[in-house]
């Protein structure tokens, strides 16, 4: 064993081995089992072993920790292997098609990453003097200009840091506008379709509004008659929150009439822009009467997401809402670009949503994406996204049950109708996909479709990959109709078999303690 000057081991000791019924190591072939860092590390190991500095004086005044912290240590090779093994357990867009509906899991062009890592963007600090970061400010301005042009809206709040944060920005602007009109206390009702993303009613409630649900019509779109009935007495209506294309993957063809009805009622129109990928370059929300819409940069304009990574949700605003936009925002002066940060310069602004200026890394990626595609390329993004979804819809129609008649937009929605009397459920189809090497589709959402399976391939998949996916899913559907019992116990080939989701939700064990380790060993 190699020893260093203080005698702590720096090479890998034999791993204890947890012991399972399959193999002694828990590994299956080259798919390696990996414990928690607490289970594989030990307090007497370290990756770096620095000599105690000489001639220093303790200035902590007697509050120095007496007992060891108990944190596990790993040698450098152990630490490297730990994280690489964990990364191999992650299903990612870089590994294969990621069919999660309503998530727009598209390929992230490497050019974006290169641009975002340029030191002039990556190494700036938000507290730096603004004169030294004019280039970064120009990127924000240029991106803002593109977003306004693509949506035909006169203003955009760049700071919101995710889709739901953008919703919050839009709804706070609506609330500020109502307060300015003297109707902040009287207009409290926000209309939300039943198929909405859950964040819509949550955002409205967070802003103090009361939610009023609008039913869906049989064709999966807003029931216009139900909407009209809710507007008969409209003196308390603050606005509507509508997603277009909606969560059923359908274009709300009555959107112009809906906008007019809401405006006539004295309310504002918030459009959830999560599905902008389906219409970017083809439809400008500003032409449809939208007052506010967030844009998920991390969906429509690629950039990494889905791993808890940064989101970015700039929110475009109509002329009626623009004065209430959050600070900070950029203005042009003779000396260059500068942030308006304070109330005295923006007296009508509803305030500040985050400490600094939004997600700089996302801005550079989104602008790189936009500039490398150009206006015609962005238009083709939407066209190909819709084409790919319709290809999946058409290929799977013979073996599964589409939720609605006709074409879809960017995502294909199926119900569990084809599973009737088979004993197989939506969740079994999803687990079967794992055995086929795919991340499952979105399931049981939207709630308006029974046993929903929502598939969004995005434009970045080739026909060959779409065929591979469709073949896999079609074979699962056929097995389901033949009541193949092995689907009920899938996945069979994944590192972990079917997990007990009920027990995980009812009595989750979220914290590692030495006691839970003992429990696990006993199981």
């Amino acid at each position: 064993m190699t020893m260093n000057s203080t005698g702590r081991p720096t090479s890998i000791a034999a791993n204890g081995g947890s012991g399972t019924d399959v193999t002694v190591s828990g590994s299956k072939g080259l798919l390696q089992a990996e414990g928690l860092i607490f289970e594989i590390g030990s307090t007497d190991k370290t990756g770096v072993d620095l000599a105690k500095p000489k001639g220093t004086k303790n200035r902590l005044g007697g509050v120095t920790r007496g007992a060891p912290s108990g944190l596990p240590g790993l040698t450098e090779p152990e630490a490297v292997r730990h994280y690489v093994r964990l990364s191999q357990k992650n299903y990612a867009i870089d590994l294969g098609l990621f069919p999660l509906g309503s998530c727009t899991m598209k390929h992230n062009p490497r050019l974006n990453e290169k641009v975002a890592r340029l030191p002039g963007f990556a190494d700036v600090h938000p507290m730096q003097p603004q004169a030294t970061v004019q280039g970064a400010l120009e990127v924000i301005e240029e991106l803002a200009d593109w977003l306004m042009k693509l949506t035909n809206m006169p203003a955009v709040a760049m700071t919101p840091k995710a889709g739901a944060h953008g919703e919050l920005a839009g709804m706070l602007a609506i609330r500020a506008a109502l307060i300015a009109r003297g109707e902040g206390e009287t207009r409290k009702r926000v209309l939300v379709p039943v198929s909405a993303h859950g964040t819509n009613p949550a955002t409205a409630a967070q802003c103090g509004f009361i939610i009023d649900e609008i039913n869906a019509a049989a064709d999966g779109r807003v029931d216009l008659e139900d909407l009209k009935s809710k507007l008969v007495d409209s003196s308390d209506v603050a606005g509507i929150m509508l997603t277009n294309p909606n969560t059923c993957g359908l274009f709300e063809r009555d959107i112009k009439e809906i906008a007019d009805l809401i405006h006539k009622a004295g309310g504002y129109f918030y459009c959830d822009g999560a599905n902008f990928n389906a219409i970017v370059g083809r439809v400008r929300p500003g032409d449809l009467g939208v007052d506010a819409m967030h844009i998920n940069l991390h969906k429509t304009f690629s950039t990494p997401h889905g791993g808890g990574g940064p989101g970015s949700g700039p929110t475009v605003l109509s002329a009626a809402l623009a004065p209430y936009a959050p600070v900070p925002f950029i203005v042009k002066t003779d000396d260059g670009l500068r942030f308006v940060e304070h109330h005295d310069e923006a007296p009508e602004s509803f305030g500040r949503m985050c400490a600094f200026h939004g997600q700089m890394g996302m801005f550079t990626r989104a602008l790189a994406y936009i500039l490398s595609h150009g206006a015609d390329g962005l238009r083709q993004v939407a066209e190909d996204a819709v084409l790919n979804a319709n290809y999946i819809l058409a290929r799977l129609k013979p073996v599964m049950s589409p939720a609605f008649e006709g074409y879809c937009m960017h995502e294909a929605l199926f119900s569990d109708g084809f599973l009737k009397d088979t004993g197989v459920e939506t969740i079994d189809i999803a687990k079967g996909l794992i055995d086929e090497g795919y991340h499952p589709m979105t399931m049981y959402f939207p709630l308006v479709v029974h046993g929903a399976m929502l598939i969004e391939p995005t434009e970045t998949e080739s026909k060959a990959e779409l065929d591979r996916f469709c073949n896999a899913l079609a074979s699962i559907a056929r097995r389901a109709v033949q009541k193949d019992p092995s689907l009920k116990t899938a996945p069979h080939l994944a590192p972990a078999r079917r997990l007990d989701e009920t027990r995980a939700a009812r009595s989750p064990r979220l914290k590692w303690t030495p006691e839970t380790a003992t429990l696990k060993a006993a199981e």
Partner: protein
Amino acid sequence: MTTYYTNEHEWISVDGDVGTVGITKFAAEKLGDVVFVELPDAGKQVKKDADMAVVESVKAASDVYAPVTGQIVEGNGAIVDEPAKVNEDPEGAGWFVKIKLADKGQLTGLMDKAAYDAFCANQ
């Protein structure tokens, strides 16, 4: 005691002017394993057809609507502690709340068992 049903799959069993409310067996089966229940506090006023409780399963989160207008007498703490009770006995020990009815006339608009069973057969 008479039991009535709503088209949102709640049941209400009325004794005097107090009704015991829960979700139906049909609803519990459709939801799958219930993992979380949120109930209104005693004393809270609830309005017919407005949401009053939340039930969450491994598949979905749903609102539970008040079948009648009235005041919450008590909530069933047992299902908050042990949501599995809703699946085990939805129309018995898995009850949600007791409501003091403001207007017993509202019950006439609800379904009886036969009408509700027919309604479910069409779902």
